[in-house]
């Protein structure tokens, strides 16, 4: 979230799209209720289904699954043609006036630099024109046809209400009604918050859907504002912490990145990431990359990381390609993996194309699962009739199940969607033999290190030299880990302004990442978390909810990253002269000497407005980007592409170019290509989702949750039901090219037939929560049906739009 949960109460308009907050985040949804009850806010829901969120919405509009970029691109077009943008904001705080290179092109759905055989773009033309001084050329009058504003205008002029309605199936009047309501928040004192979740992430163009929405928010001047922002609602209680700590194959903690295979030179690795300002006077905070990186290496390797060995740069793996889970299962499927550790993760249920995942697991020598529950993955080799029809005699994979504690049985911190690191204390002792994940991983590490010590090996140093100085070696405590990621001084730190003054003595906890250095004097396991455990103690454990402004900014409640800031980009809540756009909802302001207010300023504290430093300090341009240059894999402007399984034969935006039907840069593995179904055989659009009553594949183990929603079902609209002679309560079979599931049919008015590009589109809704373990009646794994295709940026699978057929049993 750029903002935070409580801030939603300040919104004038709440847009729930690409998510179903009431269903999946019922507790956080209270802030929407609050906004409606006490701020006269309106709630819009745009979704293929009339959801539980829609049940309490002021306005609902249907949309075809997978067509959100068309919808939002249409909103951009509406705002631009009707001049409903926050002009001053757009001019001052975005790249609208930046000039783009002349060799950047967009032709019939494909951007310049496309390599069809690799399914990849060479992104070098997706760049600004740079002057001799190294800065971007700009045109503040926005008249240059090559400035971002005009390129954007042209790009989205194609997204007319008629075409949008034809692609999305949203009736035109309904689309326009939503546009009107959104446009009202272009006033400087009105804000819209956008709440989204996996309904946007899980598409082959998921990251671009989110970006399109962010562009809408930039046009309206809603980023950095109270009651505004782009608010990703995270699913697991600690999935935010997972991303923050870099548990992704290409990432290091705190959104630092692993070197690529070719990046063997340390200096070049750092220089590429230390981003110099692209406009005069900009902060370009990633200039500090080296400090974050070196402090991380010091936390991991201590004395073994020093200047002379480039702070152990050689210990870091160099990536040949992303090794995300889709890739790993592809490799496993090809027999390239011997073993797999599965920690708090149930891929047989959670991953697309269950058949492929199941086959891949049989090719392993061993599988280790670390989980509090018996997962489908850990029993993939058991025969459960139709639900898991395998022959155990033919499976040789050895499975080790290590029972772990669950969150309520251990102390630790969780990061909420609000970016708040909140400490929690255990509520119960672990059952039976369960051990904490820390203990389990420490145990594995110590044995592994012992083997390296004994037997040597090709390159034992990255394991042997790891700092491991916990009080109990086999059981590091959550407190020790927390202090480690927050960071400490390894040497006395002097005040840069007064070299005789010691700011932090060697061994003391740091106050924040501002104190990190790149000379090896500080250690910090995750720079964005720095300060969470300072010399003042464990700030994550604070529980003071006083809110002096009434805006929901509770700085003494736990600790928000970065720097305990609650609203990111909050400098943008003020006009260029430093006065709040909306004086009634003031977060910070320039007081003549510094930036101050109820929130922690997201800015250089003493940069006077006259210095013309811009609010988006993490970008080297200092401004928010409509044109995202080379930061995305599939284009600098979002474009609508059809899902890989689409009911349409063409992309209505590019009917003559088959190459632009689906995202040209989305990742598809060769042997998955023939696993795409065709609309002739599989005519209905399917989308998977979660229900309030359950949490993923866990709560079917819980009696109360199983009582509330016992049996697997699928939802269809009344028209499709009539065509297929299906009544509510009948049993049906839903089939995709990859397999089938059987379930009870729920026939509902809440799923409408949509008119899309001259044909009727019927949607089949598929809740995911069932499997062959737990207390709820056995069910089929919904991901038996889903395709294995990944977004070009995140490699997230396309769970939200694919094709099926349905029959009554």
């Amino acid at each position, binding site marked *: 979230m750029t903002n935070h949960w409580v801030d939603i109460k300040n919104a004038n308009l709440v847009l729930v799209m690409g998510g179903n907050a009431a269903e999946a985040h*019922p507790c956080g949804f209270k802030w929407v209720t609050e906004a409606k009850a006490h701020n006269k806010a309106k709630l819009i829901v745009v979704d293929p289904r009339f959801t*539980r969120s829609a*049940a309490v919405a002021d306005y609902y509009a249907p949309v075809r699954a997978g067509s959100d970029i068309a919808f939002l691109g249409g909103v951009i077009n509406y705002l631009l043609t009707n001049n409903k943008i926050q002009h001053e904001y757009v001019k001052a705080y975005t790249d609208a006036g930046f000039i783009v290179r002349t060799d950047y092109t967009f032709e019939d759905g494909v951007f310049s630099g496309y390599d069809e055989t690799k399914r990849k773009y060479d992104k070098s033309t997706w760049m600004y024109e740079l002057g001799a001084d190294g800065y971007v050329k700009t045109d503040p009058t926005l008249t240059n046809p090559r400035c971002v504003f005009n390129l954007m205008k042209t790009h989205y002029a194609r997204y007319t209400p008629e075409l949008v309605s034809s692609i999305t199936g949203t009736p035109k009047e309904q689309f326009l009604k939503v546009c009107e309501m959104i446009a009202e928040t272009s006033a400087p004192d009105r804000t819209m918050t956008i709440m989204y979740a996996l309904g946007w992430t899980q598409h082959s163009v998921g990251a671009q859907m989110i970006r399109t929405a962010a562009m809408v928010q930039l046009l309206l001047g809603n980023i950095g504002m109270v009651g505004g922002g782009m608010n990703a609602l995270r699913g697991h209680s600690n999935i935010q912490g997972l991303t923050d700590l870099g548990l992704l194959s290409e990432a290091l903690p705190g959104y630092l990145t692993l070197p690529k295979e070719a990046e063997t030179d340390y200096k070049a690795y750092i220089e590429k990431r230390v981003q110099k300002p692209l406009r005069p006077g900009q902060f370009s905070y990633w200039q500090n990359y080296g400090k974050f990186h070196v402090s991380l290496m010091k936390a991991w390797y201590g004395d073994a990381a020093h200047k002379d060995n480039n702070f152990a740069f050689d210990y870091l793996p160099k990536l040949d390609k992303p090794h995300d889970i889709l890739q790993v299962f592809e490799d496993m499927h090809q027999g390239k993996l011997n073993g797999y550790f599965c920690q708090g993760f149930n891929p047989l249920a959670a991953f697309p194309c269950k058949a492929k995942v199941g086959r891949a697991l049989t090719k392993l020598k061993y599988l280790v699962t670390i989980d509090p529950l018996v997962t489908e993955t850990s029993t993939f080799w058991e025969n459960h009739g139709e639900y898991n029809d395998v022959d155990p005699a033919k499976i040789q994979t050895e499975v080790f199940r290590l029972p772990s504690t669950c969150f309520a049985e251990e102390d630790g911190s969780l990061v909420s969607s609000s970016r708040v690191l909140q400490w929690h204390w255990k509520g119960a002792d672990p059952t039976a033999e369960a051990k904490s994940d820390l203990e389990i991983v420490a145990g594995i590490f110590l044995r592994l290190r012992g083997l390296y010590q004994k037997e040597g090996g090709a390159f034992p140093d990255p394991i042997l030299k790891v700092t491991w100085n916990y009080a109990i070696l086999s059981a590091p405590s959550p407190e020790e880990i927390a202090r480690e990621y927050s960071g400490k001084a390894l040497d006395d730190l002097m005040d840069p302004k007064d070299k005789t003054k010691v700011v932090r003595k060697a061994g003391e906890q740091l106050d924040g990442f501002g104190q990190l250095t790149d000379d090896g004097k500080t250690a910090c396991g995750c720079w964005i978390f720095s300060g969470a455990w300072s010399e003042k103690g464990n700030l994550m454990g604070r529980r003071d909810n006083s809110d002096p402004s009434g805006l929901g900014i509770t700085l003494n409640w736990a600790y928000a990253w970065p720097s305990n800031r609650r609203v990111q980009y909050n400098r943008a809540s003020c006009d260029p002269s430093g006065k709040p756009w909306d004086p009634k909802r003031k977060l910070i302001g320039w007081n003549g000497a510094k930036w101050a207010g109820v929130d922690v300023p997201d800015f250089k504290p003493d940069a006077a407005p006259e210095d013309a430093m811009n609010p988006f300090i993490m970008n080297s341009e200092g401004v928010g980007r409509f044109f995202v240059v080379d930061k995305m894999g599939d284009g600098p402007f979002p474009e609508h592409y059809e899902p890989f399984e689409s009911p349409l034969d063409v992309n209505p935006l590019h009917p003559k170019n088959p190459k632009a039907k689906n995202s040209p840069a989305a990742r598809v593995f060769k042997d998955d290509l023939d696993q795409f179904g065709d609309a002739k055989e599989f005519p209905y659009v399917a989308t998977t989702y979660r229900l309030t009553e359950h949490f993923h594949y866990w709560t079917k183990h819980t009696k109360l949750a199983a*009582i*509330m929603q*016992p049996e697997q079902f699928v939802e269809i609209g009344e028209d499709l039901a009539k065509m297929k002679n299906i009544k*509510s*309560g009948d049993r049906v079979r839903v089939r995709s090219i990859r397999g089938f599931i059987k379930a009870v049919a729920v026939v509902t008015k*809440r799923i409408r037939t949509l008119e899309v590009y001259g044909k009727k589109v019927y949607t089949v809704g598929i809740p995911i929560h069932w499997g062959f373990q737990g207390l709820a009646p056995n069910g089929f794994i919904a991901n038996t049906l889903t395709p294995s295709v990944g977004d070009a940026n995140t490699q997230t699978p396309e769970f939200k739009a694919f094709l099926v057929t349905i029959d009554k049993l």
Partner: protein
Amino acid sequence: MALQSLDITSRSATTTPSPGVRQTQKVAKLIDISKCIGCKACQVACMEWNDLRDEIGTNHGVYDNPLDLTDKSWTVMRFSEVELEKGKLEWLIRKDGCMHCADPGCLKACPAPGAIVQYSNGIVDFHEEHCIGCGYCITGCPFNIPRLSKKDDKVYKCTLCSDRVSVGMEPACVKTCPTGALVFGSKEDMIQHAEERIVDLKSRGYNNAGLYDPPGVGGTHVMYVLQHADQPQIYNGLPKDPQISLLVELWKGVLKPIMSLGLGLVALTGFFHYVTVGPNEVKEDANENQHGR
């Protein structure tokens, strides 16, 4: 649930006068349907607090689960898909359970002394240890609430968490509701809160928004804020004008005293007929405007 800290103002089949010294505030739970997202947290909280576990059932082609109130499910969410205006779908989700009538038909119908009581704060409670399992209360209830248990032949329903309320806590379901669709307090405060909600709903185009506090049963201690107060039936058959059946009134007013003298057999036949056939005129209009429950 027998509790000593609340005064009892009426008891089934009892004529001894009730205590009247202490002044008690009337309480009420307000269910704001316009805020309810149907998350069923209240259902779970009710089971947890009251140590109940219903069966793990099946799906009946609807979101309602368990499908109906039972001896172990004292509250259930009822989902209705309603299209009052063409193209304007509404998904009305009503938390069903005992209404805690000021004039409780169940209590009036009950022949077992002290099996059903009403506390001075308005809560109607069953004291199962006195229940004889005759099921008359089921017939007497205009909301079709009490459920006879197959396990112990006694009747159960929502207690309005009288155990919690008696020690100054709100009911478990209210405490749990994430959206604030459930609120609890003095009946007076709840009416005032409802009025504010109704103003808000009217400003959003629900011209018939209103409070459901039906006078036919003397008002209730569980009230609803309805977006369409003119048509309560669309909320899965919430009765428009619930009344205690005349026969129950008769039974209470005339027959029960006569019965205790061993008379009135003829009239009784009529009542038993009524018991077996049931009063539920509610059900009919209920099905008109709703599909897929």
